[in-house]
């Protein structure tokens, strides 16, 4: 029940809705007590022969009034209580989302997207259920159960009440017991299903191997076995699950039996009228739901608490990147790296001894093997990780002195994994400048040499891309993400291995255009293909996180080392990919 305390802030915030809802529930519970009573009274009138048309009309009016009243109240409390629960989920979802937008890459490195999704869907659903069904079952089991018991004991007969309730604890005990058994079996059924899922996943991924070895038949047999096992486990669930209804009706049946037998004795002793006995049996029927609700309540609350704790923990994760700089203006592009060492938390150093200076308008090329630290270098400039002071100086100020948004405003970044959003191409390009006129979008696309490709799509710039849109080639995605960075006309442009999937001719035309367009702006390019960085003012070669060679294309070609070797290798590769004919 602790979760209700944890959620108290919300209940307080929505106190009128919750109070209103609870009061209405109370009225509904009271209202539900009326029809059985009316039935009893009419039965007594009929038995005594005292019924008149007027009495009938009066009761009819009462019943209709109660019926409509209950209908209206039920409609309203649902909106009040369930509506509030929905609102709570919405509130928490927005809060989580805001939290996510503030978290640095460090946070995302440690967690899987799938887990974060699970928090935002399953956990929030459980919390919503707690604030809705949880409140309902609590109120209903206490109020409706209580009211009905009081009505039975006070208005009819406390003796009869006691006797007929005798079997009910057995019901509570049995359903509880079934619940535990069901939980276990359900768990193993779920496991069987997930085994089945893994099996299918494996078979489909390994379909070539299975076909090559002609093992289809056997694989099907294996699947059948697993599937049969899943059926068996599900049957085990069904065997317990099917116990619920019969047990409940059996025990209610006994309860009725006791009520009717003992009730008749009381009737013959004139301690009870026959109408009251009829009312009593109806009340007995009304008790079923509160009892079941009580069992259900524990279930909901347990789940809700676990979920709420998880969400709280997630929301409590502190910010790793300190955004406490004071400079609110975006920097220009004088960059100086004075980095002694950088490592991800608790890991071996990723970068060490990186020193270089870049004047505004210059272009830096960074090359080296996969894993040599190229991407980390770019990400430091974006301050995706926390730096020590004076590691990087931009425009004579420590990079940490800039406000994050001011720093990032100056940077156009094209990541290695060209991620596009599920939106139109135009929206993707204008990602950072939503209100851009079409001319600007087109200009950026032309700069990135993607305009022609786009016009060839059926819907042109309105083509929807991303996960749920059309599939683009790697090169097309890269160029759209280049356009997305270029539309900002950034002081600092970072191309992180983002020309790898475009062909040599396109690459050349993009580089050429960047050169003329960005004469007074700083550009950083990392690449595998040396042709991407040959024109740079400064080239550094990274190996194991440190600079092993530096210079210009020509100076590097004149010294033995990684650069020269790679250059020759790549020249040969190009030749081969073109068919190897030198004519």
């Amino acid at each position: 029940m602790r979760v209700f305390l944890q959620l108290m802030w919300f209940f307080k915030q929505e106190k009128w809705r919750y109070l209103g809802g609870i009061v209405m529930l109370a009225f509904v519970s009271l209202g539900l007590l009326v029809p059985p009573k009316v039935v009893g009274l009419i039965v007594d009138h009929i038995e005594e022969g005292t019924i008149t048309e007027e009495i009938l009309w009066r009761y009819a009016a009462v019943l209709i009034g109660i019926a409509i009243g209950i209908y209206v109240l039920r409609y309203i409390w649902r909106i009040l209580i369930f509506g509030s629960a929905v609102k709570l989920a919405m509130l928490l979802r927005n809060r989580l989302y805001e939290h996510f937008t503030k978290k640095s890459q460090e946070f995302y490195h440690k967690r899987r997207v799938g887990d974060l999704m699970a928090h935002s869907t399953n956990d929030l659903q459980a919390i919503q259920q707690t604030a809705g069904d949880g409140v309902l079952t609590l109120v209903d089991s206490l109020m409706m159960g209580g009211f009905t018991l009081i009505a039975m004991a006070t208005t009819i007969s406390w003796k009869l009440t006691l006797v007929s309730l005798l079997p009910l604890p057995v019901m509570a005990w049995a359903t509880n017991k079934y619940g535990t058994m069901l939980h276990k079996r359900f768990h193993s059924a779920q496991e069987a299903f997930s085994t089945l899922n893994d099996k299918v996943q494996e078979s489909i991924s390994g379909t070539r191997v299975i076909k090559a070895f002609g093992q289809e038949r056997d694989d099907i047999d294996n699947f059948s076995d697993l599937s049969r096992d899943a059926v068996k486990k599900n049957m085990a669930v069904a065997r317990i699950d099917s116990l619920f209804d019969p047990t409940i009706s059996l025990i209610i049946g006994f309860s009725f039996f006791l009520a009717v037998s003992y009730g008749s004795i009381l009737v013959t002793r004139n301690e009870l009228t026959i109408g009251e006995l009829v009312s009593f049996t109806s009340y007995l029927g009304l008790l079923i739901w509160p009892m079941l609700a009580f069992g259900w309540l524990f279930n909901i609350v347990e789940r809700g608490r676990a979920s709420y704790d998880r969400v709280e923990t997630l929301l409590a994760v502190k910010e790793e990147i300190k955004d406490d700089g004071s400079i609110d203006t975006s920097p220009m592009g004088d960059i100086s790296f004075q980095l002694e060492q950088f490592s991800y938390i608790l890991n071996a150093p990723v970068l060490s001894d990186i020193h270089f200076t870049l004047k505004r308008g210059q272009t830096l090329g960074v090359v080296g093997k996969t894993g040599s630290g190229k991407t980390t270098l770019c990400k430091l400039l974006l301050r995706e990780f926390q730096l020590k002071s004076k590691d990087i100086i931009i425009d004579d100020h420590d990079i940490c002195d800039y406000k994050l948004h001011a720093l990032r405003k100056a940077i156009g970044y094209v990541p290695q994994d060209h991620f596009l959003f599920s939106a139109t191409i135009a929206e993707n390009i204008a990602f950072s400048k939503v209100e851009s006129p079409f001319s600007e979008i087109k200009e950026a696309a032309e700069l990135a040499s993607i305009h022609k490709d786009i016009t060839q799509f059926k819907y042109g710039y309105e083509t929807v891309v991303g996960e749920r849109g059309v599939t683009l080639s790697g090169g097309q995605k890269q160029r759209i993400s280049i356009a997305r960075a270029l539309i900002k006309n950034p002081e600092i442009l970072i191309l992180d291995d983002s020309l790898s999937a475009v062909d040599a001719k396109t690459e050349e035309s993009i580089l050429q255009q960047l050169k003329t367009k960005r004469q007074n702006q700083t550009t950083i390019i990392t690449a595998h293909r040396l042709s991407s960085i040959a024109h740079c003012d400064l080239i550094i070669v990274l190996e194991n996180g440190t600079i092993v060679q530096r210079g210009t294309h020509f100076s590097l070609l004149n010294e033995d080392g990684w650069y020269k070797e790679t250059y020759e290798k790549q020249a040969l590769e190009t030749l081969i990919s073109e068919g190897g004919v030198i004519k």
Partner: protein
Amino acid sequence: MSEEQEPTLDELQQMKQWSVFKRLMSYTKPHKKRLAFAFILLLVATAAELTGPILVKTFIDDFVTPRNFEQRALVILASGYIALIVISAVVNYFQFVLFQSVALDIIQTLRIQVFTKVHSLGLKFFDRTPVGSLVSRITNDTEAVKDLYVSVLSTFVQNIVFLFGIFGFMFYLNVKLALFCIGILPFIVLIMWLYRKYSSRSFYDMREKLSQLNAKLNESLQGMSIVQVFNQQKRLRKEFAKINQEHTDAQIRNIKYNGLLLRPAVDLVYMLALLMILSFFGIKSFNSPVEIGVIYAFINYLDRFFEPVNMMMMRLSIFQQAIVSAGRVFTVVDEEEFAPINKGNKNPVISSGKIEFKAVSFSYDGEQEVLRDISFTAEPGQTVALVGHTGSGKSSIINLLMRFYEVNKGEILIDDVPLSNFENKELRNKMGLVLQDPFLFVGDIMQNVRLYNQTITDEDVKNATSFVQASPFIERLPEGYQTELGERGATFSSGQRQLISFARTMAFSPTILILDEATANIDTETEEEIQEALRKMRSGRTTIAIAHRLSTIQDAELILVLHKGEIVERGTHQELLRQRGLYHKMFLLQHGKDSMNDVG
């Protein structure tokens, strides 16, 4: 989409839904007997359950009202009542279980059917179907269909029978009042109709908004670094809040419809029916005496009448979900992109292993040719190596030879018999394929070598592993051949995984060997062993090998150099080097200039 279009779309949808439903029903046929038995149990249980109130009625009218307590009759009545509730509980239990077991068996049938179907499909199908969605068809969607059988259909059958039973007993008690009670039915049907019309749409709307919400969230999480780098957190928060609000609105709308049309509405009808019954007896009592027991029984039946109605209403939305899922499952069952199978019924046998490609051309999509006019012959025992740049068509040649795809033009012959004449079994037994990525299955090493082929003994497995020189490292493992391979064999080095997959191929002792050499860097420890194993495997077998490292195929009888789907150079290693063409360049690339001095 215009407003007028919607109804027609809905109607189409409904027609499709109806045919999917009919098709699902056809799966019950093999279980007719069990279903009939379950149905009889259901009738018995329902009858027992509904006879109870009649006994109470008799008790009230014949004993309580006249204050006449004849002990023997009362004992009979009481034990009769208890017997009835016990019988109905027990029979109901078996009836529930029986219905569920039929439902689960049907799902089993459906699952095996779709899985078998998938295995009969060609690689063309797998090329265009993402693994994830296919897996979800076979598991999640069939699971949703399971819910349809287990919690919807069985509930509907049970509750409808129950409703009929109630009416039957009502007619037995009082025909006139029972006729009045039938008057409730149109109201119920009206509510159901309204619910289906409005609430199911708002439910659908809510689901739709939820999936949008989740898609947005998922995408944001994946692209968060972009969002942050481009300073778009605020805008995305706003966008997310908007979808979140829309989802909330849809949920509230759904709550409202449910509040108007579900339980509260059904209960309203209940109250009106109650009023009707009371007035009926009240008015009747003006003229003639009324049996109190009958009133009791009628009210009792009325109470029981509405529980099934509520239950069915609540399950309606599951129904819709399940039908959509079933529709998806059936699209796979109806798929017609079959894997190539043998033509004719001569069942030829591969004995010597001669392979011949005669002017073969091939295209995956029917537009772009990936192989053009490929001709070559591999004599029995020879090795033919395929080299070329990525996308030059090497893998396509192997795909055709394995008969994963059908040749468009030209012909492939094995032992001078067209490839298409061989039975699948013969091809798979005689041709051993070693894939670039050594795909390992969950299970131990023994199982991974033998796969499901029980004719391969433990001894055979050990022979195969020692042949490829994998036994030293396997035997060093604490559990030896029983070592479980973790997820895709992640616990082993790539070289060790290769060796295991070699052993798998050798355990089947193929006549023809098809090798797709690994491109991934294999650890230097095992590199030597792998080369040695490959040499041993090739000796005495016709081998078609894709080589990425030219050093491994220098002794091949024939090397084919492919470029853009055509053979541009052919010959032995020495001949090709002398030509100073593409092969020469590739060799240079891999070995550097220095090594060229040796070969001249």
